[in-house]
């Protein structure tokens, strides 16, 4: 795999929104960083101690302090508003698209098990089937993951989709995404979950809609055979 500076290539619908906020913050903080560090170094050189000289005797300046209180306050409020809008789109109360495809993802030490509702579209029925350490989804279609854990806290992390959500035992958390590219994307556990944490990896396979449906039909067929 090639090395990318900064964020990895994005492959979900809201990844661009997140990345935009990231770059805005990078620009703002980068500017603040340069201003402070340049001023600091400049002052250190310019006002280095020389014998026989006294420093300028002052206790401050109300005007200057008002400026450097107000400017950061305004900037962080703007960042907050921009972030809040994106956050609301991704995680807000009604943010899960109604037509999203459901997948039940169960985390356990140290595996991911993705369960599909099968042909009848509902879970906990005979035609459910489960994939170990793999999740398969169609491209350009919202997917809602019903995330649970069997034992300890794990975290569902797909870097390319900009998705991360803890899987908490005793809770079912819904998290959605919509892939924009086909291919295979790494899925990792991001929360320390024990001695096998470092190996709790899986992959998300994104396919074109028709290929996905063919695969779904195959699974349904083999499921029927197995349950006989």
């Amino acid at each position: 795999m090639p090395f990318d500076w900064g964020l990895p290539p994005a492959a979900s619908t809201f990844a661009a929104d997140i990345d935009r906020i990231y770059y805005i913050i990078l620009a703002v903080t980068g500017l603040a960083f340069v201003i402070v560090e340049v001023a600091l170094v400049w002052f250190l050189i310019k006002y280095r101690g020389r014998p026989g000289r006294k420093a300028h005797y002052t206790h401050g300046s109300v005007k200057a302090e008002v400026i450097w209180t107000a400017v950061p306050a305004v900037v962080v409020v703007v960042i907050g508003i921009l972030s809040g809008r994106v956050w609301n789109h991704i995680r807000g109360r009604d943010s899960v698209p109604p037509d999203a495809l459901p997948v039940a993802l169960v985390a356990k030490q140290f595996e991911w098990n993705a369960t599909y509702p099968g042909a009848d579209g509902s879970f906990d029925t005979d035609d459910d089937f489960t994939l170990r350490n793999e999740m398969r989804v169609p491209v350009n279609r919202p997917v809602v993951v019903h995330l649970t854990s069997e034992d300890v806290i794990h975290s569902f992390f797909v870097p390319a989709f900009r998705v991360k959500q803890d899987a908490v035992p005793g809770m079912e958390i819904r998290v959605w995404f919509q892939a924009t590219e086909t291919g295979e994307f790494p899925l990792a556990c991001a929360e320390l979950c024990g001695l096998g944490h470092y190996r709790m990896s899986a992959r998300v396979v994104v396919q074109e809609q028709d290929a996905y449906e063919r695969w779904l039909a195959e699974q349904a067929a083999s499921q029927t055979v197995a349950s006989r």
Partner: protein
Amino acid sequence: MATTAAAFDHVAHAHIDTRSFIKRYIFSTDHKIIGIQFLIMSLLFLGVGGLLAIMMRWQLGFPGAALPAGGMFPETMAPDGIMLPEFYNSLVTMHGTFMVFFAIMPLLVGVFANFLIPLKIGAPDMAFPRINMASFWIAVPAGLIMLTSFAVEGGAAGAGWTMYAPLSASAEYSGVSTGQMLWSASIVVLGMASILGSMNYITTVINMRAPGMTWFRMPLSIWALFITAILTILAIPILSGAAIMLLFDQLLGTHFFLPPQGGQPLLWQHLFWFFGHPEVYILILPAMGFVSDIIANGSRKPIFGYHSMVFAIMGIGFLGWIVWGHHMFQSGMNPTLGTSFMISTLLIAVPSAIKTFNWLGTTWRGNIRFHVPMLNAVAFVAMFVIGGLSGVFMASTPVDIQIHDTYFIVAHIHYVLFGGSLFALFGAITFWYPKMFGRMMSERWGKVHFILTFIFYNLTFFPMHQLGLGGHMRRIYDPTEYEFLLPMQGINRFITVSAILLFTTQFIFAANFVISWFKGKRAGNNPWQDTGLEWTTPSPAPHGNFPTTPTVYHAPYEFSSPHVAEDYLMQDRKVERIASPTAS
């Protein structure tokens, strides 16, 4: 407010010291000796924490390669010198635990609150000297319990220093039983030491200030330590309570945090971070205070905007209580709550900016002396800016989705705790060393140590930002297991080499510290030409501190005052016809 009765008591025997060796140096009630005891204890734990970090880095840089001298570890930790994942988890956990609870926190508070508060406010000792002694002698066994846990069956705790339940609550999940219980027990014991200490600091600052030492004549170091003590006394009981509940889950089979029987994993996180975020400010506010003292001294100027500096400390202290949820944006907590925590978190940028710009303002038109404390204090400002700004990324809820639980967080916390707190501590130790031991630390070796530390520190921690952006998870034993992390393994190796160099550099500091104790240049009363009350008394300061209780006439940082010929005006020096010194 300031009582002087106690001070008079001590005056009589200020110079006649007939205490036995044990009473004077071991079970001493003298705040200065207790401060030095804390200094030695926490520097040792700092070394332990550093060593654990280097072992972790070794595994991350060279996964599966035998540790140098790894053969000395038993089979349950590192068979054939190659560490096991469970041992790596213990290293992760214990590095964080030792650094936060047994190194940085006691260095900032145990050492300097003890040593500086009475000396800087003109008191002969702490309000409760015996409680003060108890606080140290409770902290020591807590540290020993923690250290012993490496030797018990199953090894030391391995659920991360944040101890997220249920992993921490049940040995079935972690494979660690006794070690986890010892962690909880040690934290409860250490909590008692912190509570006793803070109670003492608060009482002392309120009641024992010398005549004339009004609230707004207190040095910023004392303000910071005072606010820190208030945060500590309110935050630590939360942690102690949570740790006791965790201990009950581990030991008695209760189910506070175990969901199969109705426990709540998120309850632990709320309790832990309700303590944990004030704790973050406990770990930085005193450093900001020391840096303010040192930058004013180094710039030979009054601190810029003293009053807003005080209010900024209070503001950070207050905001620290309403931001804990920003550790939990991805935890399953209600996302709407995330938005409110984002706003309160972003607001912390405001007092932080005030402090940073006021430090800059202090150096502006100064007459700067680049002594070792000043170099470290300036490095604090430069590095704290990076740590503070990187915090804005995590505060933004959507950006946090990507960088939460990655090396970006690791970079951030180390820019605050190492780049911030530890640089401030190197500066503070060098600055007050003469008052502790009567001798100066070597200026030359101090500068060598500073420059090398500054370089290797940045080489170690800056690249971690890139790892985090690329999706490198925290606390993973072997990054090469993930194909998408392989292209960044070169960065991991680079960080490991830098970290080893950074660790090695610290031996310069250790040697300078020890050798200067015996061979350092003798210090006069006021080697840095500072204005604080502690510099009016001999170095090292005698038992009882001041021959007579000092009277304070000035604000804390009267450098380059036009009213005196020297470029510093000590707080207790009376000068005729002086303009209002605290006007801003």
